[in-house]
């Protein structure tokens, strides 16, 4: 039993990194506008299907990995401008219901376009095998996923801390009225921020399609762990989302080792414990949403 713990821990970290990137996108959108984006999973699925369509028509996987999320971003920005923006001034559950409705519609639309059954989408041959890590054999594609996620997280951190735009974004999270009064066009901020969140979802969607199956429901299946990640990590904290994701990944993996049937429940137990001990979440800033 003990000798399995190492591989399971590693596997859990990889899985957790994946939840983290989905949660990051959710957090970005939520922090700035208070929108709980229930359609986040649908954007993941959309990017997955777009990549599938591109690759099956002969485009390279590498092009699709960037292009599919970008197209999802265009759709996302249109959705933000036309459907979500008018609801910013209302109670949060208006935009929640709106995006939830969108996710249901999206699922049916994907079913109409790509059919109700899963479609085959495989990573390129260079990434398709498994590599020996010494203590375990691990799929090359999962190692690649970790690399992409680290790059994405570092790029996001640099963008938010080292660019003027990132500075304005963070300022707007603190006080959007003041930023608007100082002459920044907050509408543009909101749109770009939403697009950024969707881009992360898109990347995660293409990677998920290569790692898991791709069907109309596949994105929504990943949404629940992402929400739990945000709650554990703490609302308002992007760093919290990363830690939360890793914790959930490890919890699921280790539970599988000892009580396999309880693996899905473990993240909710973890969430309950965190909420009892530290109601704001591990790194949540009390008052930001306040």
């Amino acid at each position, binding site marked *: 039993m003990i*000798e*399995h713990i190492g591989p*399971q821990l590693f*596997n859990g970290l990889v*899985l957790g990194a994946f939840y983290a990137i989905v949660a990051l996108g959710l957090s970005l959108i*939520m922090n700035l506008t*208070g929108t*709980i984006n*229930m359609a986040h999973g649908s954007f993941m699925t959309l990017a997955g299907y777009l990549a599938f369509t591109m690759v099956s028509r002969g485009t390279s996987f590498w092009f699709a990995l960037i292009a599919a999320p970008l197209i999802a971003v265009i759709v996302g920005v249109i959705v933000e401008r036309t459907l979500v923006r008018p609801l910013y*001034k209302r*109670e*949060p*559950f208006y935009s*929640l219901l709106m995006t*939830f409705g969108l*996710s249901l519609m999206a*699922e049916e639309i994907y*079913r109409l376009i790509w*059919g*109700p*059954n*899963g*479609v085959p989408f*495989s990573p390129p041959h260079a990434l*398709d095998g498994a590599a020996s890590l010494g203590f*375990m*054999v691990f*799929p090359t594609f*999962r190692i690649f996923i970790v690399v992409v996620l680290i790059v994405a997280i570092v790029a996001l951190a640099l963008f938010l801390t080292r660019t003027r735009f990132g500075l304005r974004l963070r300022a707007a999270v603190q006080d*959007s*009225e003041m930023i*608007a009064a100082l002459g920044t066009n*907050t509408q543009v901020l909101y749109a770009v921020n939403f697009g950024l969140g969707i881009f992360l979802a898109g990347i995660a969607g293409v990677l998920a399609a290569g*790692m*898991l*199956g791709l*069907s*109309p*429901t*596949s994105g*929504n*299946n*990943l*949404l*629940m762990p992402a*929400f739990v990640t*945000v*709650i554990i990590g703490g*609302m308002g904290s992007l760093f919290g989302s990363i830690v939360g994701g890793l914790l959930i990944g490890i919890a*699921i*993996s280790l539970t599988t*080792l000892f009580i*396999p*049937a309880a*693996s899905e429940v473990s993240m909710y137990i973890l969430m309950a414990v965190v*909420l009892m001990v530290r*109601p704001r*979440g591990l790194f*949540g800033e009390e008052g930001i*949403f306040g």
Partner: protein
Amino acid sequence: MSRPRLNRGSFVKLAGAGSAAAVFGIPAYIPQIGEAADAIKIGLLEPYTGVYAGPAENETRGFEMAADAWNKRGGIMGRKIELVKEDEQNDVGVAAQKARKLVNQDKVAALVGTVSSGVSLSVAGVANTLGTLFMDSGGHSDDVTGKNCHWNVFRTCHSTWMETHATGYALAKRFGKRWFLITPDYAYGHSLETGFKDVLAHNGGSIVGNELTPLGTTDFSSYLTKIDAAKPDLVLVLVQGDDYTNCLKQMNQFGLLKKYPVGGPQVELEPLYGLSPEARQGYWGIEWYYKSEKTLGKGNAVAHKFVADTIKRYGKPPTARNAFGYITLDRLAQAMNDAKSLDPVKVARAIENVHFTSIFAGSGYYRKEDHQLMWPMWVAKIRPDGTPGDKLDLFDVTDVNAAEAVEQTIAEKEKVCKLGYP
């Protein structure tokens, strides 16, 4: 600009309720309203939304083909068949409620459909209290025609006992008797597990690992990393649908398909089409196949016409699910016609033990003692790339099992199943 603030408490509530609804589905299907007043309505319950939407669509196509064939011939006792469809969302509670609605409000003459075993059992229970016929086209759990059997419930697809016994002995002979099971953690999976344990008890094999995975598991990696330590002769994959696709895809990426033989009690074309060729491997039980003489029967004109008509009408070849739908409604209509009545007891009696030929090889009958359709069960080796002429011709049928050889005997069934006719 000011906006309402979101606090943590309401976020947890909102996100929780919202994602639960997203996961478990929400009503998304509008039933068709009947046109002809004198038509015989049949209530069709299928999980049109959610993970089993693919199989649901195909079963529905089978039902439509049978309904159209009967209507073209003038219908049942001169009355047309009208299918009233409801989305049961793969949810036992929703299914029970929709079943009641179909019987009480739409006044259907019988209920048909379902994919997941849990839902089949739920509908069977409701149908029994309402005294309505229910023909389970696609839920496989033994209990439907076993300890939860009812006089008004019939089942078309194979029982899990048939699946495990048709494949268990064949796989043990080919690969060995130390098995690693990846089992879905609900009625269907547990029922399969029981069947395989019975096979192993008879041939002296053992289970070296049994991973119970929740329905809808997306990431199987934590389970898969345990296979290497167990060193099984064979990995048996019992999960179905999207879970099957996810599991096999990840087994391939973990390099397990190259190390261990893989197989299972049943595989369907729907999830196989969602896999790339490298991940299509192994020996599996199959319940029907559109492209083999062994499953269709040599020179069986009815079967070949069914295949051709399905392709013509829907642009896709039929799967076993299409066959379940077709056989179910065709036999129900035949029984109503034979009984010259819609009275559930009379119709049930007219279904029992009537031997018939249909779109499969040989003949079949719904056994009087448990209402299980007794028809052959096949085993196939997967051809990852199909045949040169047809990339999707995936099954090379290797074994044919007579129903009586792989299902529990009447004596065994009578110990657990009491039909309880009124």
